[in-house]
């Protein structure tokens, strides 16, 4: 599904973010990427989303080299990836319904589908009563659930969650992890980055540990060990 092939990323000559990273993620896997700050987790995510280009090496998504795509092909690809960020990144001028609908509109979906699917995903993240609220009226946990709803509404192949629990309290963290597990159970590949030990231990799936831009450990059912 995702394949990193000896990927390196240098921002400047003396700032190496990734060095010779290789790994594969199979369909329907739940992979956690852990490591201290500055270990290259966020760079890894940015490479998958084609926000950054690798200095050397290639990143494949379903057999296509992400960084050779551009324009409409890249947009098509991005619609197959759902992204969740630590800082939520909802559109502040749109209410919850419109935030989720935007992802569907961007993918060129019909009005009828939008009317049907948005309430459905809101149900899934347990927020049907907040559809007409604006982001600034929601708590952190609620915002993150909206972000997840937006990420899954186009039925993506992959969900990328970049420290989705970083700004949340333990209760909300637990909720978010449960939702991600549910999504994975429904057949979507999930890539999660975090440095929350509790989260990793409670998931009990594959863990890739990063340090100083390298993969130092890859456990099929890992714990958070540093």
């Amino acid at each position, binding site marked *: 599904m995702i394949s990193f092939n000896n990927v390196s990323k240098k921002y400047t000559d003396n700032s190496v973010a990734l060095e010779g990273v290789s790994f594969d993620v199979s369909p329907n896997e739940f992979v956690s990427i852990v490591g201290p700050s500055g270990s290259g987790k966020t760079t890894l995510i940015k490479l998958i*989303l084609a926000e950054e280009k690798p200095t050397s090496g290639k990143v494949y998504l379903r057999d296509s080299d992400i960084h050779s795509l551009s324009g409409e092909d890249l947009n098509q690809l991005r*619609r197959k990836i759902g*992204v969740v960020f630590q800082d939520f990144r909802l559109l502040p001028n749109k209410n919850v319904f419109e935030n989720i609908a935007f992802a569907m509109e*961007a993918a060129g979906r019909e009005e009828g589908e939008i009317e049907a699917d948005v309430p459905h995903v809101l149900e899934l993240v347990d927020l049907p009563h907040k559809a007409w609220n604006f982001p600034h009226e929601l708590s952190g946990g609620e915002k993150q659930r909206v972000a997840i709803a937006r990420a899954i509404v186009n039925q993506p192949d992959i969900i990328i969650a970049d420290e989705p629990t970083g700004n949340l309290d333990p209760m909300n963290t637990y909720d978010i992890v449960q939702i991600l597990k549910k999504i994975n159970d429904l057949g979507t590949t999930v890539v999660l980055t975090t440095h929350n030990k509790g989260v990793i231990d409670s998931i009990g799936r594959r863990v890739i540990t990063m340090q100083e831009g390298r993969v130092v450990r890859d456990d099929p059912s890992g714990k958070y060990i540093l």
Partner: protein
Amino acid sequence: MEAKTEFKTKLRRVMKAGFVNFFRSGYVSLASVLVMIITLSTIASVIFMGAIFNTTLEELRNKVDVNVYFLTSSSEQDILDLQKRLESLPEVANIEYISREQALANFKLRHENDQITLQALEELGDNPLGAALNIKAKEPSQYQGIADFLGQDNILSRDGESIIKVNYLQNKTAIDRLTKIIDSSKTLSSVVMLLLVVISIVITLNTIRLAIYVSREEIGVMQLVGASKNYIRGPFVITGIMYGLVASILTLIMFLPITYWLGGVTENFFIGLNIFSYYLSNIFQITFIILLSGIAIGAASSLLAVRRYLKL
């Protein structure tokens, strides 16, 4: 799963998003509209200033004419002969014949509050004023030719003595000087106004840029969700057009009382141009120019501003 929506649906969504965004980001919109009003007012002022200078120059040019004064002893036949000969010149637009009686009547009218002059005239008994021909040329540059024609020795003389007096040259110097002053002040003010227009456009551009800078993260998110560039750009451009539209309408309304208030002043100060009636009689052209400028500036600034953040 890749459902292709029609262009019409997309357009409707983009329009709606831009429209809604205009109202939801109220203060940012207000600031942008206010700045835009300043720009459009400068453009409107340029139009009005231009009109004032042009009519003033035009009026002044019309003030140039050639008057031929005849001695009191000239016979009417001689005068009419000369008029006929002048009318055959290609440069002459029209000639007004002012008879001695009419000249006297004009003189009395002009001095109706000046008892001493009227009394002096009374004492003379006879009409001391000669007849005159007032000649207008088709083009201001042609007066010299007419004056030269009248300057010929044998044009109309009796006993070797000219019976006419041509007043062209005295008038000409004064009017030339005035024309030159107005002409150069027109150039100067055009440059200053143009500079103001450019400055205010730059300010508007920056204001809209700042308004979109606030949304730079949003633009990034939209791209990561897979929205196409046009689909992201569209709503911002629509919002920019809304700024322009609202600002144009407010500017056009604002200029009604302003020109009404200034109308009397300009009418007295400059030669007969009331800018309020000028505004009303050219309302369609002015509305068109202001609306078009507003929309163009709004759309162009938004396009330029979004472009910076559309790089993912």
